[in-house]
């Protein structure tokens, strides 16, 4: 997943989102993998729920991420009807997306393990 850390100006009442896009992509993929097809709002809600407010996420930031994931072919989208009878775009994970999810998860787990080891060593 190629991109830089990118922070853009946000509403000052909330602290800036402390989430690198790499992780956001991962979270979106995980959400879609677990929950099946979802629209943008559903994904954002789910992420907030799981993170339990440890993460301050501007929900709008999902959309560029969703676009990116779709360009890479890891998710696919379809227009449908949301729960309040509006036209909404629903996203679902693809097979390539599932493979990417597995790879990224493994990579994260390795990093976490190393960090843990490192911190243990230091103490």
């Amino acid at each position: 997943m190629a991109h830089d850390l990118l922070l853009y100006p946000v509403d000052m009442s909330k602290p800036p989102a402390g989430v690198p896009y790499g992780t956001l992509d991962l979270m979106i993929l995980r959400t879609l993998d677990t929950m099946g097809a979802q629209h943008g709002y559903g994904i954002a809600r789910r992420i907030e729920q799981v993170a339990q407010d440890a993460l301050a996420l501007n929900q709008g930031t999902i959309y560029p991420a969703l676009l990116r994931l779709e360009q890479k072919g890891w998710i696919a989208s379809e227009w449908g009807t949301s729960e309040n009878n509006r036209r909404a775009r629903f996203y679902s994970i693809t097979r390539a997306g599932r493979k990417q999810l597995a790879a990224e998860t493994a990579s994260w787990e390795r990093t976490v393990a190393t960090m843990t080891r490192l911190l243990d060593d230091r103490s």
Partner: protein
Amino acid sequence: MTAIRVLLARILGLFGRRHVDTDLDEEIRGHLDLLTADYMRRGLSAEQARAAARRDFGAVEPMKETYRDQRAFCWLTDAGQDLRFGIRQLPRHPGFAAGIILTLALGIGMVTAVFTVFNAVVLRPLPMPYADRLVGISTTGRAAGPQFVFGPDFVEWRSQTRVFDRMVAYGTDDETLLAPRGPSRVRVADVTEDYWDLAGVRPASGRVPRAGERNEVVLSHLAALRHFGSDANVVGKAVVVDGHPMTIVAVLPPGFRFSLPTGVGVIARRGAEVEVYRPMILSASREGRTPLVSAVARLRPEASIEQGQAELSAMRMRTAHRQPNPMLDDRVLTIRPIKEEVVGSARASLLLMMLAVVCVLLIACANGTNLLLARSTTRWREIAIRTAIGAGRGRMVRQLVTESLVLTSIASLFGVLFASVIVALIVSAFEQSAPRLAESSIDGHVLAVVAAITVLTAVACSVAPALGVRNRVPAEALSAQTATASPSPVGVWTRNLLVATECGLTLVLLAAGGLMLKSVVHMRQYPAGFEPDHVLTMNMQFAGAEYDDGKRQIALAQAVLDTLAHRRGVEAVSLSTHGNLLSALLQVENRPMPRLEGGGLVMVAGMDAPILMTAASSQLPRVLGLHMASGRWLRDAEDAVVVNEALARREFPGGDPIGHRVRLSLNSGPWMTIVGVVSDLKYSKLDASVDPELFFPYTKADVLFGFTTLVRTTGSPDTLAPVMRSVVSEVDATQIGDDVVTLEETLGESIAPRRLNLFLLATFASMSLLLAIIGIFSVLSYVVAQRRHEIGVRLALGASYRQVMRMIVRQGVQTIVPGMLAGAVAAFALRRLMARLLYGVEPTDLLTFSLVTALLATTALLACYVAARRVLQIDWRSALHHD
């Protein structure tokens, strides 16, 4: 694959923008509505819920901007970032940057220089309008050499052709011009009236000669400056060309050159530009002497060469029916684009030079890659961390390529500067080596090629480091244990492969250069007695009507010889008409002769192995150091001739020519006895076998078309050069001797193309040797640095420094030897290609191969040794600690 998908999606994203925006707006509105509904469910009022929803969502416009950037091409911003980062990095590692810039500048510079020459000589179209439709017509039937057609044929074709829209007949010659500033020799071009249209030039002042005018001439810009001081007010002035008064009717604009292919027939002045253009008037009559002319034509836009060939052949057949002429009718008509004739054989050898110089560039790239690899391994930690936190492999690779592009671009700038110096050098020293060489300049085409090479080089140099990026595991980056790089085996293997390749390529270039050198040296090995650097030659061609008489010509020649013989510094003087008269046959007494029409010497261009009939004086052996194989040389006034060994082999195989009688002209003239056979001597061309030649006393000639005076000097030839010219003026002030050069220079020019090749190959070979040595040295130094720990261990366990050094050197040798072997095999495989460049030397010459191999091996070993000495600087205790 993913990258391609993204790329495609982004390209598609450039279209259908408005649709996208409304879609996104709809999604955003839907999202906000759901959020608002949620908040309302929690008990907030409608406005409060809306506000809270907007807060949760975050700023919409910035997000939409990011979204739009994502859809379309935003790699431009990324590239800009990479570029700035790359440029900032440079001053931090000046040594590395300088090293890579220098290496690449050398490689790119050499390629640019050679390509500039190649472009000027081979690629550039001729400077005439519709140059691709210009063809040369000839009936000489020979592939090379002067191409002629017969005057009356030309007139007939021109009046009847439908395939060609212009036909021009022309010829060039050196003649005497009498202008206000005095007499001089100039190159004159005789051209029919369509020439000006064909060449696409209009006079700067005046008008071109009208059809039918014989006594009007056009001057080139340089000629006007040279003979009149300025190009103004020249039109209307009178001059005398070859004894005939003419009026100047036009002066051409500066920069215009006569660019039609000229045959090399009689002894002509080297490298002269055409200064005077005279009208050529041809008659359709086939009686009497039919002149030979060169012919060029322009095809109509829809026409092809085949159609032209068919039309002209048909016309010739009709003529042959009407007026058969057995000598002419069998000749084959050939039509060829004139570019081929002008470029000639230069294309083949220059292509080979391009190949060789690309090898040099490859070696420079290999060194560049090595340097970049070394850099990337010291940066691998930074790269690994950036990859881990999300920069991604693709981005890192883009960054590496951008950085190497920055370095390569700077190297290109220096390279172009370097190339301009080399090109200037080549043009000044080797102008005669190839047609149009003097026009070499670094123009738009060359720069475009340089830009392409820059990009390719940058990409090539970053391939290996980029491949290294994917192998980095983030975990190792964070470990503090490895202070220096722990290189993946791929990195080391790559570097060894690069060094081996460098050695191989260098060996090939060294072999080529060595063989070329041997070939040129071999050609310049003169037999005993032949000292061309002490022989001055001067060309003389008769001017004026009074010298149309053979007797007067001979008298003049005699006077010049006699006067010169008594000057100081002259050891011996003679004359020769070598190259002026050729004959297809030798008439030997008591031998049957084929029946031919007419008498006189048959001077027909188009013979495969003509016999040179050379008028000479009795002193020629003294001047040239000729050796007699048998018999004796000529005396000045006898009816005797001398043949050379080549002629003896051809006409008297296995027998003795002495005593036989021959005739100089077919079926006319006295019988002359062969009194001697002279050993073959290459005294006009070094790289061709000796032509069969017959020498006769000049006093017995019917007519001399011109002659060369040869003087053997006792001391340095420089003092005698002006004397030779002044002697001619003393004898007859209306005549001019010209082109006073040593025979050494003439011989050198005969192999001028080879000398250029030698210069280029020698430069390539030495440059590649230098680069290869640097490459070997840097790789081995790196190996020493990287194996510090291991070396420390060995030293601690009791190994001596010497043993460790030997180990390092052995590692170097293990890389170099396979490379050299591969190079030797490649050089052997390319032997046929190399044979084209050589003369008199086999492309598999063992001595040369051994010498260059020894050279490369010695220098490479030296480099290994010096690099291995770095081991001495290692203190094993700290090496063990530091690891």
